[in-house]
């Protein structure tokens, strides 16, 4: 009886806790989305406006998150910075995924020779830690937001490609693919209608999780001075600028840092929640 009760309660508490996390993540995602699309709505000021008199102001009513060394409002900058981080995160994931789909599909569909070649190429990419690969790319093509985005995308591509290839090979051998052949479908029809949808659907979850990671990586590159240039209101760059004053003006690095963490966590929680729903569907 007690075991029964325990089993019952542990079953009911878990979904509730999850629902709270999912709800919070949803709200945060909404906030971030608004901040990215219409930042003026949440922070009407100019993120680049200088006010030397108000420099290094700690969080007050006038400046909720404080100000930086030039008196720029940190809150306004954080809100306006959302679009950079979000766009970089999404674009980098899209690049990684796109490249992964192309490489994975080539390897999975075009026979042993292509498969071998692509696999060796992926192994070379895998040999470098992801961030190192991104750094190498930036070394060659110079720093900047666009390069940083492509660099992050590039370094996530091998992982996606591997997963797509494995998934593709599994789906390719599935009975329903054979059934489609028996119905008289062409190879390309089967690829487009059956194989790719069933390969890519599980990847959607992974990509959502990947957005969080891409945002962190992009911020890392900016922090190292290889992404967005300093006056730009980008979280990683702001973090970097605040580093000099970390002992006297903690708010300069604290708030951008919090937002990087929150965005990454939001993406992860949402990704996992989609995953769970798809599994139980």
């Amino acid at each position, binding site marked *: 009886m007690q075991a*029964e009760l325990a089993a019952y309660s542990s079953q009911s508490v878990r979904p509730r806790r999850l629902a709270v996390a999912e709800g919070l993540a949803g709200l945060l995602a909404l906030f971030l989305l608004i901040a990215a699309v219409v930042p003026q709505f949440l922070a009407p000021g100019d993120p680049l406006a200088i006010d030397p008199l108000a420099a290094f102001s700690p969080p007050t009513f006038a400046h909720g998150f404080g100000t930086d060394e030039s008196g720029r409002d940190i809150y306004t900058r954080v809100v306006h910075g959302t679009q950079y981080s979000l766009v970089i995160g999404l674009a980098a994931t899209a690049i990684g995924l796109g490249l992964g789909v192309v490489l994975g599909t080539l390897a999975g569909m075009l026979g042993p020779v292509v498969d071998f070649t692509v696999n060796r190429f992926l192994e070379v990419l895998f040999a470098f830690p992801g961030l190192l690969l991104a750094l190498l790319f930036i070394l060659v093509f110079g720093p900047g937001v666009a390069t940083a985005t492509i660099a992050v995308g590039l370094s996530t591509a091998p992982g996606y490609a591997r997963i797509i290839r494995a998934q593709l090979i599994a789906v390719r051998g*599935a009975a329903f693919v054979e059934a489609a052949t028996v*119905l*008289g479908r062409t190879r390309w029809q089967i690829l487009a209608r059956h194989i790719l949808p069933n390969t890519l659907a599980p990847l959607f979850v992974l990509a959502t999780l990947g957005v969080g990671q891409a945002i962190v990586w992009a911020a890392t590159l900016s922090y190292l001075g290889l992404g967005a240039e300093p006056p730009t209101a980008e979280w990683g760059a702001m973090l970097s600028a605040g580093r000099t004053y970390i002992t006297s003006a903690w708010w300069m690095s604290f708030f951008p840092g919090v937002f990087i963490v929150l965005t990454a966590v939001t993406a992860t929680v949402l990704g996992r929640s989609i995953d769970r729903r798809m599994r139980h569907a």
Partner: protein
Amino acid sequence: MSATAALTVHNLRVGFGAAEPVVRGVSFEIAPGECLAIVGESGSGKSVTARSLLGLAGGNARVQADRLDLGGRSVQGLTDRAWESRRGKDVGLVLQDALVSLDPLRPIGREIADSLRLHTTLGAAARARRVIELLDAVGLPDPAHQVQKRSGQLSGGERQRALIAAAIALDPPLLIADEPTTALDVTVQAQILALLEQIKRSGTALLLISHDLAVVSRIADRVALMHDGLLIESGPTEQVLGSPQHEQTRSMVAAVPADKPRGTRLSPMDSPAARTIPRSPAPAPTATEQGEIVLEAIGLTRSFRRPDGSRQLAVDDVSFALHRGSTLGIVGESGSGKTTTARLVLALLEPEQGEVQLFGRPWSSIAEKKRRGRRPGVGAIYQDALGSFDPRRSVAEILADALGSALTHSRGSRRSPQSLARLTTLLDEVGLAGTVLSRRPLELSGGQRQRVGIARALAGRPEILICDEPVSSLDVSVQAQVLDLLDDVQRERGLSLIFISHDLGVVQHISDDVAVMRSGRIVESGPAARVFAAPQHPYSVQLLKAVPRLLG
């Protein structure tokens, strides 16, 4: 009697969580040396009953009973620890899938010795001797050598023997066998049943759990039929099978296809899944003159590469002819090359030698591009219906897609009202209601899935259907309905069928002609009536002898 009974169960009830109980008051006893078989379809509660007797019903199960005595001692409310000392010693268990029941990384000898080590004072040398004795007793050839093998190195029958050896290691007074032969070939099944019977004769009480009436009728002294958590009928085997009283029992007995002539209905006409289309009258007596040849296999040969690089012949010089409107049954045990033959006939594999001709024209030897337009003429039905459907699609999408292929070739538009009407007709023909259209195959029952599979195969208006084990994963009563359905559509549409199965009873019931396959070759073929009545080849004789028959 109850004082000496090996097992006494009185009013056993088992439920999970807050849901309705799945076993709702079951009572039976088994005397030493007696075999009771509990027979039921999936979901009837038979396995839960068996597991409850071992304290293995699961953590969230509520097991209640007025009496639950094992060897005269109550086992009610035993703790997990107390159960550990009883299992193996007082009661042994044999499960269906020996592959997952044995640890793949440990030699079987060690697996069997485990219970000896835990429950006896035997030393290591004595244990090793006992293990070899046990393996010898269960008929494993060369036991001294086999003890070193791991489960993956043994065949299905050998694994099952090893598992039985482990279960009887401590000589328990009661042995529970849950579907012990379901995964095995008929000839192996017959051997395992003989072994169980021998164990029973040595005085062990045997509780057999099975879905297959014919299998249990061989060795069970008494049969109890379970349905919806209750024992609906029980008694001596001959009595229950010979003159079943309960309606459910009667339909289960009627559903067994072996020895029922071609065209006999296996499922009751008023079953809920019966089709709305009126049935055609009783079949005309099988015509003696045969129709034209629609499909012919000539000397098909195909081999596969083994992991070590050598080639293994899967299909070796196989020839047969399929006549219009008739059914060719291909029967054989696992590994006999039946499925490879089906794939060759469907032109999913290319033969290395020989060819398949369709309507007198080349089929296997032409380019896929040329074949594609003719593919709708050959439908396929698979054993794993669920796996043969794209998991992302609903039934409506699956069928519309199949109809679409037929319509493209007849220059029709996909969303025309005619195609909608054809969708409905198609569903009606296989006895499904329109409500399944919006569902995904995962949400359907096994029988419904196979009906959708048949509907999809019929969508292209085929003249030939290739059925690869189409009813092997279904309950007997559902199998009966699907066999009846195949019989109906064949007659209404004049289809020619190739029916591949390991189940001789099913093949005997549905086929006009039969080909018996073994190790990639057809060892015997001819009219079904002749082959089943007077088999010529020794292997056919052996195979037929092994088929479980009611009251055989």
